[in-house]
C-alpha cells in the first residue's frame, strides 16, 4: 500500500513538473502582455519534433537537446515578432485570436512537413537510453523518466527564480509585469523584456515537450493541445500572471489528476473486509471506475470552480482577476 502511494506521489510530482514548466511559460507572457498564449502547446510540439529529427539524424542526446532548445526558442521569438508585437496595445482579444491562428500554422506546418518528408502523422518517439527503464529503491519501483521530469522541473524552475530575482533583466521583467507603462517610463526596454519572456517560456516548453514525448512514447502535430489546456488550468489555479502561482498550480494539478485516477473504482480495489459493505457500496456508487475516463472533465470543473470562487487563484491578488 505504501509503495503504491509513493509511486502515485512520484507520478503526481512528475506530471506536476511538466505542467509547472508549461504553466510558468504561460504565466510569464500573460503577466506582461495579458495574452493567453494558446500556441504555447504547439511550441512544445515543435520541440518534440526537433528532438525526433535530431535523434533520428544520429546526434548524441546532449547535442540534440541543445539544438531542440535553440530551435524552439527561435520559433518562440519569431511568433512574438510576427504575430503578437504588431497587436500590442490593441483590443485585448486580438492577441488571443492571433495565438489560435499561430497554433493552426504550427500544427499544419508540422503536418505538411512530415507529409512531405514521407512520414506518418503519428511518429514513435525514440526514447533515449538514458531515460528509459526504472529505478528500484527497496520495494519501490519508479520509472526513470518520471524522476528526471521532476528533477528537471525543480532545477529549471529554481534557475528561473534566480533569474527573475537576481538579474537586471529578470527584475525589469517583473517590473513590466507589474505595470507595463510605468516600466516603459522608467526606461525599461519593453521589446527586449517581452522577447526574453517568450524565449524563456519557449525554452521551458521545449524541455517539457521532450519529457512529455518520452513519457507518451509517440508524437503527432496535435499533441500540444491537451498539455496547454492543463497548463492554463495550472496557471489559473495558482493565480494567472504569477510565476510562483503557476508552479504551485502545476503541482496541485498533478496531484489532483493522480487523486482522481486513484480514487476511481476504489470501492472495488479495497481489500475484502477492510471497509464495511455500506462504505464500499457508497464508494462504488459515487466513485465508479469509469470516473477515470472523466478525469479531464473533472479537472475542468475544478478550473471553473476556482474561476468562480477565487478567480485570482491561490497566490494571485484580487486586482489580477478582471471580474466585475
Amino acid at each position, binding site marked *: 500500500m505504501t509503495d503504491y502511494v509513493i509511486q502515485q506521489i512520484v507520478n503526481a510530482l512528475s506530471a506536476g513538473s511538466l505542467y509547472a514548466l508549461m504553466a510558468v511559460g504561460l504565466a510569464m507572457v500573460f503577466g506582461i502582455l495579458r495574452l493567453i498564449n494558446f500556441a504555447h502547446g504547439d511550441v512544445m510540439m515543435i520541440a518534440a519534433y526537433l528532438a525526433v529529427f535530431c535523434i533520428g539524424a544520429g546526434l548524441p542526446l546532449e547535442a540534440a537537446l541543445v539544438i531542440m532548445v535553440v530551435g524552439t526558442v527561435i520559433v518562440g521569438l519569431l511568433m512574438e515578432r510576427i504575430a503578437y508585437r504588431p497587436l500590442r496595445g490593441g483590443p485585448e482579444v486580438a492577441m488571443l485570436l492571433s495565438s489560435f491562428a499561430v497554433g493552426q500554422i504550427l500544427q499544419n506546418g508540422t503536418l505538411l512537413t512530415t507529409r512531405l518528408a514521407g512520414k506518418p502523422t503519428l511518429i514513435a518517439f525514440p526514447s533515449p537510453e538514458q531515460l528509459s527503464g526504472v529505478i528500484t529503491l527497496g520495494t519501490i519501483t519508479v520509472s526513470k523518466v518520471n524522476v528526471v521530469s521532476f528533477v528537471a522541473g525543480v532545477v529549471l524552475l529554481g534557475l528561473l527564480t534566480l533569474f527573475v530575482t537576481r538579474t537586471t533583466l529578470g527584475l525589469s521583467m517583473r517590473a513590466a509585469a507589474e505595470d507595463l507603462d510605468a516600466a516603459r517610463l522608467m526606461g525599461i526596454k519593453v521589446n527586449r523584456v517581452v522577447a526574453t519572456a517568450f524565449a524563456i517560456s519557449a525554452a521551458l516548453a521545449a524541455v517539457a515537450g521532450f519529457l512529455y514525448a518520452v513519457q507518451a512514447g509517440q508524437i503527432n502535430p496535435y499533441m500540444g493541445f491537451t498539455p496547454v489546456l492543463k497548463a492554463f488550468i495550472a496557471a489559473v489555479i495558482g493565480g494567472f500572471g504569477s510565476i510562483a502561482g503557476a508552479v504551485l498550480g502545476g503541482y496541485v494539478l498533478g496531484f489532483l489528476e493522480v487523486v482522481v485516477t486513484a480514487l476511481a473504482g476504489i470501492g472495488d480495489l479495497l481489500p475484502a473486509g477492510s471497509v464495511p459493505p455500506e462504505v464500499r457500496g457508497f464508494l462504488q456508487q459515487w466513485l465508479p471506475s469509469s470516473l477515470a475516463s472523466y478525469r479531464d472533465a473533472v479537472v*475542468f470543473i475544478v478550473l471553473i470552480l476556482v474561476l468562480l470562487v477565487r478567480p485570482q487563484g491561490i497566490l494571485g491578488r484580487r486586482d489580477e482577476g478582471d*471580474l466585475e
Partner: protein
Amino acid sequence: MTARRAAGPLLVILLSSVALAVLDASGQAFWQGLVINLGLFIILTVSLNLTSGFTGVFSLGQIGFMALGAYASAILTLPLQEKAAYLPNLPSWIAGVHFDEVVGPVPLGFLAATLIAAVLVSGVAWLVGRVLMRLSGHFVAVATLGFLVIVRVVLFNADAFTRGSRTFSNVTPYTNLWWTAIWTLGTVYVVWRIKRSSYGRDMFAQREDRVAAQSVGIRVMDPRLLAFVVGAFFSAVAGSLYAHFITSFSPTVFYFDLTFRVITMLVIGGMGSVSGSIIGAILIVGLGEALRRVEDVTLLYGLSSIVLAVIFIVVIIVRPAGLLGQREVPLDRLFDGRWWRRRPGPRPDPTPEGDQSP
C-alpha cells in the same frame, strides 16, 4: 418596418429562393452540399456573433452546444429499429421515443426533434451561462473552452447515448436545401432583431464600457445571458441540421478546429455585424473549398489551414474590426426615395461606433 424598407431584404430573399430552386432542380449534389454547408456556417457564425460579438464575452464553447444539439436530435429522430440495433443501452424512457413522422413532404418529427434538442441545449446554456457569464475578458474564454472539453469528454464516455468514440451513424438524411435555408433565415432574422432591440443595445453598451453602462442602469448579466442562451439555441439547431445532413459523425468533429473556423468567419466579417458574419462565412467557406481542391491536387494537406490562419492574422493586424466592424449592409435603404424624392438624410446609427475593443 415600412414596406419600402422591407423591400430590399425581401428582394434578396426572393433572389436567393430562386437560386435555391434552380440549384434544387439541377441535381448538382456537390453544389447542394456546399450550399447546405454554407448555411450551417452562417447559422454558427451569426449565433456566435450574438454570443461573443455583441457582448464582448468571448465564448469558445459554442461548438459544444452544437455537438449536444447534434446528438440530442439524432437520438430523437432515430427510428425504433435502428435505436434498438445501434443504441441498445439507452435508458427505457428514451428508447421508446422516435420522432420520425413525415407528413406529406414535411418531416415533422425532424422539426420537433430539432426544436426539442435546441430547447434542451438552451437550458444547459442557461445553467452554464448563469455561472460563466460572471467572468469576463480572458477568463471566460478559458472557462468556456473548459465547457467544450467537458462536453467532448462526456460524449466520448456516455456510450449508451452516443456510442462513445465510435461513429454515430444511420441518421436519416432529413436536412436539405430548404430546411437549411429556412433555419438560416430564421437565425439571421432573430439575431438581427435582437441587435436592433433594447436588449441588443444593452449588449453593445456593456461591451463598450461596462461601468458606464451599469451607471446608467443597464444590467450586465441579463443581456449576456440572453445572448449566450439564444446563441446556444441556434448552435444546437445547426448541430441538428448537421447531424441529419452528414448522417454519421463522431465527437472528434466538434472540437477546436471547427471552433476556430467559425471564429475566423466572425472576426473577418466583423464582430457585431450580422451581415458581416454572412459575408465572412461565404468568403471562408468559398476559400476553404477552393483551397481544399488545391490540397487534393497538390497533396499538400494542411496548406488550406495555414493559408486561412495567415489571412486571419493579417486581418486582425490590418483591420482589427473586420470587414464591416459592427455596421450592416444597408439593404433596407436599397429602395429609399433617392429616385423620386430627396433622401431622408443619413440615419444616425443607434449602436455606438468608434473603439471596437471589447
